[in-house]
């Protein structure tokens, strides 16, 4: 019997991968802060506050796209309700920020303004932990995680798959939106939370604080990328892809898909929660429209445009689509939705593997023509 050379396990990142990763880390942690804070306004290299806000926001979206990729790209489960987890994380952070306003609100009361307006005398029970930052950090992951776990447990146990699953996730986020619209729910109704003043007792609207949040978001995104990479490189990740390709074979190989789907579904939801929590202090507002079905669909579009099942793709997708959105909604506000629709159709028809797939195809083509000449 001739010896067989078995492939060795893939490293977390290749050498060039690590180089690119370090470069991204340096840009986020050093280059961007220097260009924004130290280079004077008017200089060619100055990074405007608007730019910091925009990229910071997009990096939050990229975290969502990455989370979507884990559940859709690798496990084959299309969620159209990830906006809910994003909003839940955002609301958890928003509650803390509302409490941080303290006596500086319009009504000069310990209670958030909207509660005074509704004539509430004390904090409702679900606001009890909102005063503590540590508890808030916990809630930011725990609440989306718990909601996802319970929802996922029943959905996956009943073997709800494919488009049916997508539809009920969409219904889930829509139902949550209607719930949060009500004043009685205690989350500020349709106005949501806004007018934040401080975070950890430090004023929130300063340039330094914006930069800190920006760096934090970038580091989180890169950290999540490494985590996702590790998950996908492990046998766990390969089981997920196996679930996507042939779920019955997975079962008859002795794996219970329920545990695997539930784990990645919950991890994905928690990542969105963190993204939401980083998003709210940067944009300064959270309201139920974050839970609207269109937002969740947009997350799926980022992943599809960038390239499913490629980790880096969805991050690029979030940057491309959101970047185009922020430009188009200013330049041609009425065309944005048409553009989004056309983009989705175009990608589905012509770029099944997204932008990353296109780049791969192009580089292959140039290699081939290079060989011939």
């Amino acid at each position, binding site marked *: 019997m001739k010896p067989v050379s078995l492939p060795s396990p893939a490293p977390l990142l290749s050498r060039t991968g690590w180089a690119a990763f370090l470069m991204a880390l340096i840009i986020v942690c050093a280059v961007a802060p220097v260009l924004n804070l130290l280079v004077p306004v008017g200089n060619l290299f100055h990074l405007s506050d608007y730019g910091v806000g925009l990229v910071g926001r997009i990096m939050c979206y990229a975290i969502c796209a990455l989370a979507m990729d884990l559940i859709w790209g690798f496990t084959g489960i299309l969620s159209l309700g990830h906006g809910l987890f994003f909003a839940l994380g955002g609301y958890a952070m928003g509650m803390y920020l509302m409490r941080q306003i303290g006596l500086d609100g319009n009504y000069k009361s310990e209670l958030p303004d909207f509660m005074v307006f509704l004539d509430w005398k004390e904090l409702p029970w679900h606001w009890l932990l909102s005063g503590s930052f540590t508890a808030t950090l916990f809630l930011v992951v725990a609440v989306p995680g718990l909601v996802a776990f319970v929802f996922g447990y029943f959905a996956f146990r009943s073997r709800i798959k494919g488009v049916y699953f997508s539809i009920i996730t969409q219904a889930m986020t829509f139902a949550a939106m209607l719930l949060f619209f009500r004043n009685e729910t205690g989350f500020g109704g349709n106005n949501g939370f806004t007018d934040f003043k401080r975070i950890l007792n430090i004023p929130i609207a300063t340039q330094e604080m914006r930069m800190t949040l920006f760096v934090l978001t970038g580091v989180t995104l890169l950290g999540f990328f490494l985590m996702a990479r590790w*998950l996908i490189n492990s046998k766990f990740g*390969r089981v997920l*892809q196996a679930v*996507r390709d042939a779920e019955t074979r997975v079962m008859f190989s002795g*794996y219970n898909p329920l545990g695997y789907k539930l784990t990645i579904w919950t991890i994905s939801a928690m990542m969105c929660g963190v993204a939401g929590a980083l998003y709210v202090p940067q944009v300064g507002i959270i309201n139920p429209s974050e839970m609207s079905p269109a937002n969740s669909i947009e997350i799926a579009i980022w992943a599809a445009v960038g390239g499913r099942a490629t980790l880096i793709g969805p991050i690029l997708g979030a940057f491309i689509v959101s970047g185009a959105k922020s430009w188009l909604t200013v330049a041609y506000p009425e065309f944005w939705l048409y553009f989004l629709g056309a983009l989705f159709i175009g990608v589905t028809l012509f770029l099944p593997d997204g932008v990353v797939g296109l780049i791969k195809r192009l580089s292959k083509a140039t290699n081939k023509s290079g060989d011939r000449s």
Partner: protein
Amino acid sequence: MTPELLEEGTRRAETYRATHSAASGDTESGGRAAAFSRLAIPGEVDTTHGRILYLEDVSVSFDGFKAINKLSLDIAPGELRCIIGPNGAGKTTMMDIITGKTRPDAGRVFFGSTIDLLRYKEAEIAQMGIGRKFQKPTVFEQLSVFENLELALKTNKAVTHSMLFKLDSTQSDRLAEVLHTIHLSDSVSRQAGFLSHGQKQWLEIGMLLMQDPKLLLLDEPVAGMTDEETERTAELFLSLKGKHSLMVVEHDMSFINTISDIVTVLCDGSVLAQGTLAQVQADERVIEVYLGR
């Protein structure tokens, strides 16, 4: 029974197991003392009564159509049993029932003497040692041949375990051995989706071997294979016989002729005839269902 007697019994059972340690984890028929004070070990397949699989009066109907009708069948450890029958005879449904995919309306299905298969789910049944090959080759198309086999490997299949899993040297050797057996050593890193139909069939059989099942259910394993591949498959199955129990559903009569001892003919969801291939082929009723009257 008094507590003293119970304790005494436990003590004797333990002494017995200590002195017969080799046999304790592996209940086989023959070469063992009588079954006094023998304890049923959870999860262990007890074949002391000479049967690894029993189906008794199993019935299942879909929308009034009786797919399986009072089917009774049993298989001995190490046996290679061929199942034939016209389309719609219930061959695949029977496999669905054994592997937990379909729940029967009535009847009993036992793995060994002690494990009631109807109480378990697909994944648990697979873990206990029943492997199944589907009619249509089902492999993980986006993964490489190596990764396909690695996933099928018999090991702890819990989520946390998979996250930290690393192939050890015994497992690598086993994997290399299976790769050799299924003639795919040259395609280790190839994506399974790019394999030929016959190679996919082989890969799926290889995945079953990685699971190291006690009982293999094979639904049309040589469909779409070339003559040479079919011949190799026959050799492989004959070499598995004795170590594993096999149940093979096939339409290819020459293949069955090569491998079979006992052939069971299914028709309308129950056993029509059973015997050697020559016997069943001579059976009037079998000729009737195959050729019509």
